[in-house]
């Protein structure tokens, strides 16, 4: 079992390194075409160095605090993955949670924890929609979660033109956010590993048929997994808004390439492990913050997201590659 854990950790590390190497190669290639003199130095000074060190600029507490929303979102995605449920609607849940928190904060003037509770509730309710579609209409959850995510993002974008959104009050919530992410990760890990519903979920993750033979109510388990996943996604959005990270809400391009991608990348890096998801989210946020400090005149800010996408591809390649159904007798 320990070997399995080490193998999984090693695989994640390899994905991260491979993604970074590929990203660096893309940056060098892009710079080669556009830069003249001192190409190597420019790539290092304006691109790679800020990418790898930029995350520390605000200090470790800010890094961990800013990574908390991504960690909560990746926890939601990981929880669903434990049951073999492909949750790809993180972006929509995040946007919905952020909008709910914004409404509560700006219109009702509720305290931050009440805003967070409302955003989690909104995410949970929205997350139950693909759950219901799966149970009642047997719609595949990958499609259901993607569709509801798009719907949420588009509706919120339309609404954003009609409502005057307010910026969040500058509150120092890094420590509470970090504590929330840590406690949630621990609770989810304990729940999945040591409780009857957790084992139900893991058996469902093996295959639906196995779960049915084992007497698991597959529909109910999948529904609650998607609800909980939605709840965490919504809470992640709320937390992001309250930390002042989601300023331009709801922006379609940001929603898709920002938190949605970060959550997926962290969950993929962690291989669906709840505790690993928090560590992976910190790594992803570190890179993302670093990418933001790159010289915009030389490298586009999207370069960081491209590197994250490459890491995600590497994780997917490992998950589906040899030994996982590829070359198998």
């Amino acid at each position: 079992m320990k070997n399995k854990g080490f193998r999984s950790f090693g695989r994640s590390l390899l994905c991260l390194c491979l993604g970074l190497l590929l990203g660096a190669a893309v940056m060098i290639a892009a710079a080669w075409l556009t830069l003249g003199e001192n190409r190597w130095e420019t790539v290092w000074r304006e691109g790679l160095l800020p990418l790898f060190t930029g995350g520390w600029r605000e200090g470790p507490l800010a890094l961990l605090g800013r990574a908390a929303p991504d960690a909560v979102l990746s926890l939601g995605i990981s929880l669903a993955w434990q049951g073999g449920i492909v949750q790809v609607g993180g972006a929509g849940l995040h946007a919905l949670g952020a909008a709910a928190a914004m409404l509560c904060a700006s219109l009702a003037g509720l305290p931050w924890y009440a805003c967070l509770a409302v955003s989690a509730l909104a995410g949970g309710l929205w997350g139950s929609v693909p759950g219901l579609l799966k149970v009642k209409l047997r719609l595949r959850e990958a499609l259901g979660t993607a569709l509801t995510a798009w719907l949420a993002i588009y509706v919120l974008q339309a609404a954003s033109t009609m409502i005057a959104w307010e910026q969040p009050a500058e509150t120092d919530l890094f420590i509470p956010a970090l504590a929330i992410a840590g406690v949630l990760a621990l609770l989810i890990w304990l729940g999945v590993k040591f409780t009857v519903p957790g084992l139900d979920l893991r058996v469902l993750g093996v295959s639906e048929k196995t779960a049915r033979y084992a007497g698991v109510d597959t529909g109910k388990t999948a529904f609650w997994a998607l609800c909980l996943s939605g709840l965490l996604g919504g809470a992640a959005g709320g937390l992001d808004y309250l930390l002042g990270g989601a300023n331009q809400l709801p922006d379609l391009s940001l929603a898709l390439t920002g938190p949605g991608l970060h959550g997926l990348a962290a969950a993929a890096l962690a291989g669906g492990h709840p505790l690993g998801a928090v560590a992976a989210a910190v790594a992803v946020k570190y890179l993302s913050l670093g990418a933001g400090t790159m010289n915009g005149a030389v490298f586009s800010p999207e370069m960081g997201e491209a590197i994250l996408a490459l890491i995600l591809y590497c994780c997917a390649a490992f998950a589906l590659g040899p030994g996982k159904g590829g070359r198998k007798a």
Partner: protein
Amino acid sequence: MTDYALEIEHIPTVGNGEGLLKVRTGEFRAALAEPSLCALLSAELVGFSCTGEAEYTLHGQPYFPRSPRAALKKGVAVVTPEGALAGDLSLTDHIRLLPGMLCGKKKAREKAEALCAAYGFSADWTAPAGALSAGDRYRGEILLALLRNSEILVLCQPEAALTLLELEQLSAGLRKACQQGKTVLLLTCRTGAAALADAYDALSPEPDDTPPGRLDIAVGSVVLEARNLTGNGLKDVSFEARTGEILAIAGLPGSGKQALLDILTGTLTPKEGRLRLNGREINDYSVRERVRAGVACMPGTDRDCGFPLESVSVRESMALRRYREPAYQESGFLRKGEMGRYAGDVLTWLNIQPGEETSAENRRRCALTRETDGNFHALAVLDPTKGLGEAAARDIWNRLITLRDERRAVVLLTSDAREALLAGDRVLTLYRGEITGAFDPAVTTEKELGLYMTGRRQGGEERFDEE
């Protein structure tokens, strides 16, 4: 230049045999081997895996294909019971996908029919491959290999898809192919199938066809009664399983055994018909209620059995049927210590050393023990010895016979006619969801059973009186 088309050396044989296999060009040769060895050789020949143990030589040249494409380029076609046909495409569509066969459907079919006539095969060209019987798919793949002009045909475990009689007919066609220069290697775990070739090498000990010993006890009352089960591919299926007997239901893959097991476990509801356990109707019982009422079931694959799984530990797998019982959970929290103790006890009882529980035979033994460790009245098992060697299969049969001797009712759903005859006290045959015959294994041959399993004969004087 050597006149051997294919040579395999250093084969990891079990017990006897030199681990050497040589097939001449134009020869129809068989190798008698355990299922795991058949699977290993076919996987290496087709380029799916490479253990590095066996050494392959093709026409005197080293042969180590890196992919099925490479194997096909070298003229080696491997046909396995799992098959490689796309379920939604018909055989005609598959023919049109072959290199150099880009033509209209009509022309493709004409070519295929000419080939069929030459070798004495028959096939349904228009139905999707997924709707064909396992035997038709197997024959279809052989035809595709012949159309591809593959020089060497490796047929792996045809007995898993075809009956002995169908194999006999197939071997006549294969012999014709050999006369035209093709080389055929039959990898099988059956002496009957191996004997159909011109010669065979025994890479594993020859299987013993004497039925396992059992107590001579009188058959008791009806425990599990199925009446007119219809739907999910079944048509009016009725049977009774009694205490102290093993009722074997033999049917080829796709005959409805899986649906029957699912109905018995409660994961599938029949459109019509009723199911009774000790006289009590259990149609509306959930899976858990059925387990509590005394119906034990063992699905056909390790994955379906849930043992052992990637995300579930061995102790959790062992307690998979009963982790909701108070002994293994308290207020929703798993009692991992109890689960571990139970798993340890079972492994000790089965004399399985730590780390060995993942071998194919131990997985089956553990799964069977898990299902039958408790107070149950009827047990339904699907293909319990599929892919196992002779010794492991006999171990499973002996376990089933012990349960029968303890006066439990056992329903053995199997694709293997030999297994039905050796382990069963009474045999029913299933073809396309219908019971086609009932037999006494003591006076029935495998070939005869095959006639009913393939639907060539139905009812007849051999039919048992169910009531």
